[in-house]
């Protein structure tokens, strides 16, 4: 298969639909990215809503995930950012994005992200980024996000963090839920 951006393919799978080999590749790629500890990824992977794989043919070169984190963790993030009223228990976390070093800058991330946005639709979601990681903390590159409150330190990381959210109401509306239509 030619390694051309035109031949990239992204699939979105629930963990229960992934083979053990795919899940292992996922963990290895995320660990190689250096932003998440391998044991944490292994622990949380079964709880993720979907895993997103980008590759050429059977070769996976980029991954991402959508996770519904613990409710108290979501509350913690929005409290740390100074906007607790925006905390939404339905918000899914976009996380574990990683692209093989050899394929960075070739549109893999964009391909993966586009499939992620299609999947999410109008559902609220959020992500946290290290402020010092300029390449991913730059809001102008992902205009769907708003910067929530202010950057903060939290016990979950030794780094200063930035919380970004999309499709969140300014104040959580408890009458809203996931509906099939």
């Amino acid at each position, binding site marked *: 298969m030619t390694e051309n951006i035109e031949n990239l393919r992204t699939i979105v799978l*629930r963990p229960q639909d992934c083979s053990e080999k795919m899940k292992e590749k996922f963990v290895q790629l995320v660990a190689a990215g250096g932003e998440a500890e391998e044991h944490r990824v292994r622990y949380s992977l*079964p709880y993720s809503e979907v895993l997103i794989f980008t590759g050429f043919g059977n070769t996976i070169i980029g991954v991402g995930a959508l996770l519904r984190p613990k409710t108290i963790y979501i509350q913690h993030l929005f409290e740390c950012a100074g906007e607790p009223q925006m905390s939404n228990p339905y918000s899914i976390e976009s996380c574990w994005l990683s692209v093989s070093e050899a394929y960075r800058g070739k549109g893999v991330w964009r391909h993966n992200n586009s499939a992620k946005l299609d999947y999410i639709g109008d*559902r*609220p979601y959020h992500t946290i980024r290290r402020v010092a990681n300029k390449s991913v903390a730059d809001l102008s590159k992902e205009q769907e996000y708003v910067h929530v409150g202010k950057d903060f330190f939290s016990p979950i990381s030794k780094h200063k963090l930035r919380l970004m959210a999309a499709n969140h109401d300014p104040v959580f509306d408890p009458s809203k839920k*996931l*509906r099939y*239509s």
Partner: protein
Amino acid sequence: MSDQKPDVKTILRRPIDCAPKLLQNFIDIVLIGGEVPVANLRRGVPSADMLFFAVLEKQIIGVSCLRYPNANFHKHLFEKAGVPEMYNPLSLEACWLCVKPEYRGVGAWSSIFKARTEYTEGRPTHALHRADNKLVSDPVKNMGYSQAGIDFYADTSDDKLCLIVKNHDPVFDPSKKMKYC
């Protein structure tokens, strides 16, 4: 003696919000029913959409679950029932319902069912039961479920099975999605 049934409450918890002890409690109660291998539970519980716990006087007396099953297995069920066109990848499977024997008849089943119905609202759901299990088949048909296709045998069970559905279109409509509203 009063004929009034005790006040059974059902609480909903996503697996990721459950303490390990609570998850183990869930598994232990399902195992009492003797219908599900422990390995399936250990693998499947973390990826459940929602767990239901029927509680009476601070005791968990019954449990149930909503989950997205493995997609291949899910399709297989609708094919076996002779209605492949009804297969809906967004349909949640209602499963792993079990009430502790000493608490049967106190209202746990109906409490769980009510909580499940409120949670799913118009979302498509399905469930599988043994075709000869009249204790289940008659009540659920009064609660909005209807049989999909015909009774069938599948590789996963020695018993003849019945597939029941709720809020399923006769033919899956791919334009419908989960929306947050």
